[in-house]
């Protein structure tokens, strides 16, 4: 873009899984090629570890660009004044095509970063096994459960999941709750406006318990990370996986081709406006960064339509671009996802359990959810605990 920048640029990225890592490294290489005088230092840290490290990183010897997540999850750092206000970029037109996602980046009336990708959640399944058993993609929970029974009878499990790091259980809860009580109710719960012991929440858990009790989920999921649990799907021991689109790349890596995997939207339960999870990942400039101009240039570059198209392509991140002017790659999952989010999420788009709920609530909550998935009979006890936490945290 016409003018280049020079000097230093230090980036800390959490894109540590193999595919994202390659994308990030490519991104830096390309940006560096455009700005030959710029000295870019890229550090990639473990994605899980980054969640605990970002706070330190922002306060001590802050880099110029960091990765994080949209929505509530930005809260603590915005409140603490650790993120740079980048509203100017949205105003001065250096971020064309981002108007639609501006909302997810807004807190306290200002914008605090730029998104670079988002991705749909939904049920990824083994198309070949469905065909073998003569199953169709279900649209309602009744169908889903009927399918599941057939699968179970064939000696397989319905769903792979790995809850060792807890958050995958949050995905199931998001969907069960949004399908049972609707998007708005889910958000009320996230904002602490509803008691966890509320009848409606209990209903969500009951619906979920039905699946658990029929043995739909793989055993010992509390011992696996989501990656480790993928093995059950690739081995054919489980037929489906409620997960984000980022899982497609490792599935392909594990040797499944597109004729073996497919995707459908989470089935309906009650007649409520459906919401979808579509977490947005972002770039931010720490308030204490020393090369903010260079950082702004990088943010603008990352958000630009072409770059968005490129990095979200099926061969790269395999996710959805945030820029309205970008093209969605001709990938069956991206196309289906894009279509689902554009046309079939009447209720609204949620970020994800751990991004919509405040940090401490999310932490207590996900631990409860994990326990529930193993011991559904502990439901009341768990809910009481969550309610206690809610009362303390939101006060």
């Amino acid at each position, binding site marked *: 873009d016409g003018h280049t920048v020079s000097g230093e640029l230090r980036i*800390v990225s959490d894109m*540590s*899984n*193999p595919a994202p*890592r390659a994308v990030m490294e490519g991104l830096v290489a390309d940006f560096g090629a455009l700005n030959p005088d710029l000295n870019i230092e890229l*550090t*990639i*840290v*473990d*994605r*899980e*570890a980054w969640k*605990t*490290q970002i706070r*330190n*990183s922002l*306060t*001590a*010897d802050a880099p110029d660009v960091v990765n994080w997540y949209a929505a509530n999850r930005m809260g603590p750092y915005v409140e603490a004044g650790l993120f740079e206000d980048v509203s100017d970029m949205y105003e001065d037109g250096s971020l064309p095509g981002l108007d639609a996602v501006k909302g997810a980046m807004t807190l306290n009336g200002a914008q605090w970063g730029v998104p670079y990708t988002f991705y749909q959640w939904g049920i990824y399944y083994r198309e070949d096994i469905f065909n073998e058993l003569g199953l169709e993609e279900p649209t309602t929970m009744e169908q889903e459960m009927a399918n599941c029974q057939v699968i179970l009878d064939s000696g397989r499990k319905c769903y792979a999941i790995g809850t060792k790091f807890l958050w995958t259980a949050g995905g199931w809860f998001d969907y069960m709750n949004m399908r049972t009580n609707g998007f708005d109710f889910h958000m009320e719960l996230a904002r602490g406006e509803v008691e966890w012991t509320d009848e409606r929440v209990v209903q969500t858990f009951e619906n979920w318990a039905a699946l658990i009790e029929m043995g739909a989920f793989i055993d010992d999921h509390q011992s696996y*990370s989501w*990656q*480790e649990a*993928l*093995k059950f799907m*690739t*081995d054919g021991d489980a037929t489906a996986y409620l997960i984000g689109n980022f899982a497609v790349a490792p599935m392909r890596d*594990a*040797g499944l081709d597109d004729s073996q995997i497919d995707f459908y939207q989470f089935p309906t339960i009650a007649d409520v406006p459906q919401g979808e999870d579509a977490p947005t990942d972002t770039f931010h400039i720490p308030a204490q960064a020393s090369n903010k101009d260079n950082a702004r240039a990088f943010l603008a570059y990352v958000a630009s339509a072409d770059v968005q198209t490129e990095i979200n392509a099926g061969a790269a991140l395999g996710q959805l671009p945030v820029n309205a002017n970008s093209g969605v790659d001709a990938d069956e999952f991206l196309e289906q996802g894009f279509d689902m989010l554009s046309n079939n999420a009447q209720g609204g788009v949620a970020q994800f359990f751990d991004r919509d709920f405040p940090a401490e609530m999310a932490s207590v909550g996900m631990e409860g959810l994990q326990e529930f998935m193993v011991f559904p009979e502990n439901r009341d006890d768990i809910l009481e605990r969550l309610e206690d936490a809610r009362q303390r945290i939101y006060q």
Partner: protein
Amino acid sequence: MFPTPLEKTSRQWQIGYQVLLPIVLIIWLLPLIAVAVFSIKPDADFTNGNYWGMPSSFEMFTNYGKVFFESDMPRYLLNSVFITVPTVIGCIVLSSMTGFALGVYKFRGNLLIFFMFIAGNFVPFQILMVPVRDLTLSMNLYDTKTGLVLFHIAFQTGFCTLFMRNFIRALPFPLIEAARVEGVSEWRIFLFVVLPLMKPALAALSVLIFTFIWNDYFWAIVLTQGPDSQPVTAGITSFNSQYRAAYHLMSAGSIVAALPPVAMFFLMQKHFIAGLTLGAVK
């Protein structure tokens, strides 16, 4: 000697013992052996469910090559070296001085200061975590190897002082008196009489501290982040999330991370064990 020396026992037990020994060893090291075998297996063995059988092919070079050339492990290893070596030197210097002061001189408060070092060494270090992290931040040393080194030196000084002081105590005191009668100044007594005699203690302590610091994980994640300054113990966790479920690579990585202290142990075994038993405590 107890139990009864083998040569004085029955023939059957002698043979039985010789047979039993390797068997027990293998059982004892089973988890490690498994990991070693993992680390030379090909990827395919894991996808095919051949977890515990013989490796279908030996992929030592591929696996370890990946660790060394396609990951941050070499950087982490190097960090560990740059953290461990200065710490060992610092600890030795500080504690041979404190140990000398506490071991040789009688003065009011001697025992009190000595006990302070010991007590400090035994506190659950979690209680130090937040203040030390703040201190490090405020000195602009957060996420630097220096910050980690300084803390390690300070904390290990407690243990090292205990060790050195007890060692110096056991030296024959007339040596120091002889030097005093000869008109040698206290500094020179330290440098020329005591320090040379402490060589075994220095060696033992170096090896011991090397292992402790190399294996430290807690402080590494409290005071550092990222491959710029984190040591290999922390590095291995991020290496593992990079290769999640790729057991052959994780195993190779773990073995690489564990190797230096193990090598140290085998080379300096005598000193290491002397250190453990002399200094008595971690």
